[in-house]
Structures are given as structure tokens and as C-alpha cells.
């Protein structure tokens, strides 16, 4: 079964909940309208469609738009050698969606990382702690409104942070621009 056939089966099963599959460079994606249904979709994808491997879960911060979060699931079938991408949107007010950990156990750390970096919670996760930063760190550093240099914090006997000196940076490298002087890292305006 190809990835497109799997996506069509998913569409046939869940109807209006999922969009028509789109193809870009040979990769099939579809969106799920209701994030609360991700557990059922994940279960169907694994049990019936044979997507036995959860490659990754990522999150996107659509800052300034509503809904703010997009959570992206990358599925892979080891037997059919196909991949499928499922996207679903979560509003900032809710910032919560069901965990798919009972379907794929590898979701455990992926969901913890998203919680740590983006602040999206996964209901039903048995151990939703921060995975990279320490417990008690007050911010979610991969959000778009978090400054690149960081913010000052202090948790006595655990850790402290200070803003990093950016010295006019960030310094951006341009790919393929003429000579090495043109390519080297410099302060650049986004318009350039």
C-alpha cells in the first residue's frame, strides 16, 4: 500500500475530520481538523494502515495567528516502506491535546520535548516533565516571542540563566553569495 492509498483510507474512515491528502516532493501530508481526535487517528494509522514507527513529533509556533500551534506527526511503515505526515492545530488558550503514547511508546520523549520547548501539554502522558531544561525553568524557549539571547532566571541551588551577549547579532550567513566575504556571518536585516 502506498502512502497515498493509506492517506485515502484515513480520509475514508474519518471523513470531514481530515483534509484531502496533499503531495509535495513525493511526501504525503494531511491535516486533522480536531486535535482531540489525534489518538483515534493514530490508533487507526497503526492498527489498520500499518504505520508501526513514529519517526518524530514536532511543533510549529504560528505566532500572531490563530490557532497558534501546529503539531506535526511523522509516521513510517517499516513493512510497506512509506511515510505519512499528519498535522493538527491547537489553540493557544487550550495548548493541550491527547497523548499518542499508548499507540507508539516512542512518543514519550517527543511529547516531553514539545512540552519543554513550546509549552503544549499532552493529556494522558504519564510523565510530562521537562526533558532538556530543568524543572522550575519558567519559560518555553522555542516560542517565537522568547528572545534569542534568553531571559534572566534564578532558581537557587538548581540553575540560573543570564541573557547571552549578542553584540549586535544574530550573525547570519548567506549561502552561495559571491565570495567568502559576502558569505561570512554578519548582522543582516531580514529585508536584504
Amino acid at each position, binding site marked *: 500500500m502506498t502512502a497515498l492509498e493509506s492517506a485515502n483510507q484515513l480520509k475514508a474512515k474519518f471523513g470531514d475530520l481530515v483534509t484531502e491528502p496533499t503531495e509535495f516532493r513525493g511526501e504525503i501530508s494531511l491535516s486533522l481538523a480536531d486535535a482531540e481526535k489525534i489518538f483515534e487517528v493514530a490508533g487507526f494509522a497503526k492498527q489498520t494502515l500499518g504505520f508501526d514507527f513514529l519517526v518524530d513529533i514536532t511543533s510549529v509556533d504560528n505566532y500572531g495567528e490563530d490557532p497558534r500551534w501546529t503539531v506535526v506527526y511523522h509516521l513510517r511503515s517499516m513493512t510497506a516502506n512509506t511515510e505519512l505526515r499528519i498535522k493538527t492545530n491547537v489553540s493557544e488558550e487550550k495548548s493541550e491535546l491527547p497523548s499518542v503514547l499508548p499507540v507508539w511508546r516512542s512518543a514519550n520523549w517527543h511529547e516531553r520535548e514539545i512540552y519543554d520547548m513550546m509549552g503544549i501539554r499532552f493529556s494522558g502522558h504519564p510523565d510530562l516533565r521537562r526533558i*532538556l531544561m*530543568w524543572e522550575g525553568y519558567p519559560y518555553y524557549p522555542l516560542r517565537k516571542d522568547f528572545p534569542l539571547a*534568553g531571559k534572566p532566571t534564578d532558581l537557587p541551588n538548581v*540553575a540560573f*540563566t543570564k541573557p*547571552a551577549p549578542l553584540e549586535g547579532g544574530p550573525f547570519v550567513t548567506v549561502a552561495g553569495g559571491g565570495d567568502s566575504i559576502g558569505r561570512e556571518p554578519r548582522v543582516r536585516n531580514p529585508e536584504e
Partner: protein
Amino acid sequence: MQTQSDYAYDSKIEGDVIVTRVDAALNWFRANSVWPMPMGLACCAIELMAVGASRFDISRFGSEVMRFSPRQADCMIVAGTVTYKMAAVLKRIYDQMPEPKWVIAMGACASTGGMYRSYAVLQGVDNIVPVDLYISGCPPRPEAVLDALMELQKKIISQPCIQDLNIVKTLTGQNKS
């Protein structure tokens, strides 16, 4: 074949006696047996392993005894990126080392934060512990680490080590209290 110079120490003539200063002797011991605490946190630690291996051979300088217990170490070599999460652990390990102790910041990250101008990375290990020597490089060559070790030996030898002891101050009448 003559293996010994006439001008060197000769136990037949001088017996088992060497005349020196306590300071010089103690510093000589210290400088030639700097036991490193390898604080390997990132890729610099790979180069640090190369320093310990046969090609570069840190034991030529008496520092082959890498101690993974801070209580048996003299010199902490901070090799790698220090994150804020690790900073408290690093400080704690430094505090556990017995005096006298020295710190070498190996590489750009340990010295200044390096390329990580980031919310997660401590901008130089000298923010939390006193650093004796900084090694440039990303990562530094093993020769640079050996050079730093030799510089540290020079520093150890040049510093008085018993003048500040209370008993010496009392004996020489400097301690008024």
C-alpha cells in the same frame, strides 16, 4: 659508556641529602603530578582523550592520572560547552576538589560560550569558577592542551605555597592574632 654526568647529583659523594627550600620542593611535587579532573562536556573531551593517549601522552608531564573523583584531583579541565543545567553540577564538583586546585578552560565554549550565544549556555566557565588558563581553539589541538599544562606547571612553580599557611605565619611572627 658514561651514563651519568660528574656534575649531577651523586649519592656516593653527597649521601642521601639534597639541600633545597620547602617551597621549591613542594612546588616541584605539585607541578609534576597535576592530576586532572576531566570535565568532558562536549567535543573538546575527544581531544582531551587524544592528549591522554599514546601519541601525545600527557604522562610525560606527570598528569596521566585522570581522576573521575574530584576529591583526588588537582586541576579541573573544563572541556566543552557548559550549559546552565550543568553549571551547578560543575560548581559542585569544583567545590569538592581539595585545595590547592586549578582550572583550565579548554576551548572556545568553556572560555566564552563560543558560538553558543544562547539561552541555554553559560557564557564562559569563569562566571562560576576561577580559571587559571584559557585554551583557544574549537576544539584545541592536543598540543595546545599540553602547552596549557606546561604553562600551568610554570605558574605552580612560580607561586609561593607555604608562605600563607597559618603555622608558617606564626613561626615567622607574621601572625599577630
